[in-house]
């Protein structure tokens, strides 16, 4: 039996909640499931607004937070049950690129420190020369030169820093890179470049990506599959072109309609009527989107709708009571 590269099953995570801190627990993930395919390498996008749990998901995959319940499986192996050796191996196979490329550099060291760290701990090179060659090769792939390694992080531009992060991930040659909002802090022209590098790495180096983003349009440009996250659960998922081309969930539709189209001829028409900012943190036994749903009808039954294919055998899935009755 073959396993998907990465599989997340019923992930649940709550934060906070103690008398000492006086805070109620906040649910970040509420039974979230998805998978990323590795053969052939793919880019899987996870899209959602802030607070949807997408960053918690990234941290769970990277092992920075432990789930309250549920599993993260890498090639069939549960992350929680991995021993020291397997975990170390997992570290090598799963790398990350973060949102803020500046924070990823320790201000105390030169830019090259990040590369040295990885080489040293993962014992990636047998000799000094080999180490040099590998770094040079990784930098070359993102269009940087080894001279940049000697610079201090603040002497690099935002784009250079982010490309260096990608180069670092390449150097380790992982199977999966978790890219957590990698382009949300860089300018438009550099954004394209980094997305392009991701595509090339997928095709040329067979590296899969878990692309975490709030921006559906960049997801549309590069992702093979997409999962739309809302309040810690997946509300719609499937092939990107299909999900964003024919969205079935009202939330996905609202998201798409809210993207400002770079075309003065297609301006927003009616303003949004629902109150998008009423905060509901209490767990509910109803559809999580109910309070905001522009289409919530009297007809919607109570209870939480499960993720189900829109038609027999389709990989496009949606969690909405009305998905089958509309259109």
């Amino acid at each position, binding site marked *: 039996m073959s396993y998907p590269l990465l599989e997340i099953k019923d992930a649940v995570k709550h934060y906070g909640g103690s*008398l*000492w*801190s*006086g*805070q*109620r627990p906040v649910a970040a993930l509420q039974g979230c499931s998805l998978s990323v395919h590795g053969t052939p390498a793919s880019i899987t996008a996870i899209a959602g607004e802030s607070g949807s749990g997408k960053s918690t998901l990234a941290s769970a995959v990277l092992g920075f937070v432990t789930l309250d319940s549920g599993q993260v499986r890498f090639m069939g192996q549960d992350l929680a049950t991995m021993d020291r050796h397997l975990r170390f191996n997992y570290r090598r196979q799963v790398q990350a690129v973060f949102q803020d490329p500046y924070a990823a550099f320790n201000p105390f060291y030169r830019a090259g420190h990040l590369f040295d760290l990885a080489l040293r701990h993962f014992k990636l090179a047998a000799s000094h020369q080999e180490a040099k060659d590998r770094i040079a090769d990784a930098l070359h792939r993102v269009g940087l030169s080894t001279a940049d390694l000697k610079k201090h992080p603040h002497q690099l531009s935002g784009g250079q820093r982010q490309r260096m992060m990608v180069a670092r991930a390449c150097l380790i040659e992982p199977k999966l890179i978790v890219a957590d909002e990698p382009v949300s802090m860089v300018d438009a022209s550099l954004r394209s470049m980094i997305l392009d590098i991701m595509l090339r790495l997928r095709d040329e180096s067979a590296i899969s990506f878990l692309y975490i983003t709030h921006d559906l349009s960049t997801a549309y440009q590069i992702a093979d599959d997409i999962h739309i996250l809302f309040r810690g659960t997946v509300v719609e998922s499937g092939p990107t072109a299909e999900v964003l081309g024919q969205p079935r969930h009202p939330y996905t539709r609202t998201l798409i309609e809210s993207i400002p189209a770079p075309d003065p001829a297609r301006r927003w028409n009616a303003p949004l009527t629902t109150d998008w900012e009423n*905060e509901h*943190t*209490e767990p509910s036994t109803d559809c999580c989107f109910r309070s905001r749903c522009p289409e919530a009808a009297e007809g919607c039954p109570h209870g939480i709708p499960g993720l189900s294919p829109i038609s027999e055998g389709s990989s496009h899935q949606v969690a909405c009571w009305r998905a089958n009755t509309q259109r």
Partner: protein
Amino acid sequence: MSTMRGSSLAYLIRRLAMFALTIWLGLTLMFLIPRMAPGDPIAAMVARISSQAGRVENSEQMIQAWRTRFGLDAPLYQQYGRYLWNSLHFDLGYSMAYFPMKVEDLVRAGMPWTLALLSIATVLSFLVGSTLGALMGWPASPRALRLVLPAALCFTSIPPFMLGILLIYVFAFGLRWFPFAGAYAHEFPPGRNLDFVFSAVHHGILPATAIVVTTMGFWALGMRAMMVTTSGEDYMILAQAKGLRPRRLFWMYGVRNAILPQVTSLALSIGGIAGGSVLVEYIFTYPGMGYLLYQGIVNNDYALIQGMTSILIIGVATAVLIVDLAYPLLDPRIRRGDL
């Protein structure tokens, strides 16, 4: 928003827990450390008192009282329990040097002086220092002001009691403007009359100055740093754009925000200020708790020492608690939110 009530209750519980913990820790340290030292300090102490007993009439009685108070024959945990119980009930026993006076009576005599000196000096220093610091850190302050003010801070690195010696030398010994010692002139005993009040203020000015001048700079520095930070915040830029009057900008947008960490800092440093004032009272022979403590040390009056310090620890913890409980009044994020 639903977490509001929970968070202020949790804050209250946290602060009360810290209050209890501080007192317990302070008392425990004082109990344990002398007993952990090599040799048997209590036995040595009793011997030392016995050797001096010739001078004191009721020496036997006194030593016995001392032994009973500490229950020296009892197991350590019983001694400890009794010690905590007595301290928390202000049952401080008899003074050995001033027998048959109770330590409680001595505390009652010294407390008002210390309380008045310390609270006035601390509040004054906090307010003046913070204001100076705020002006120093405010970009719109006149340039001259910002250059002159650091000069006022050169006393910051001097300990209060050393400045006290200097002040006595200059203003009491040299210029004879103020008295050397004491809290009031003996011809005006405490009472509700102006003579006494003037005399008390006259005696209090030098010790208070010693504390205020030396601690002021600490507040000024902290406030300056916070003010610099605050003046770069987005809300400050928006407030400037709104065209607010400089005074409102300074107080309600600048100082109002910058003072918050200062209050936390005040709570943390009350203990240090109290410790420093013990020495100031000693230098000025000011008849407060600190001077009494010194008397206890000179006279080997361990009951007095123990009692005084227990009261000082509880008193400081109470002051800290008061400041902590006042903090939410200044910061709506604690009062109503979930910071």
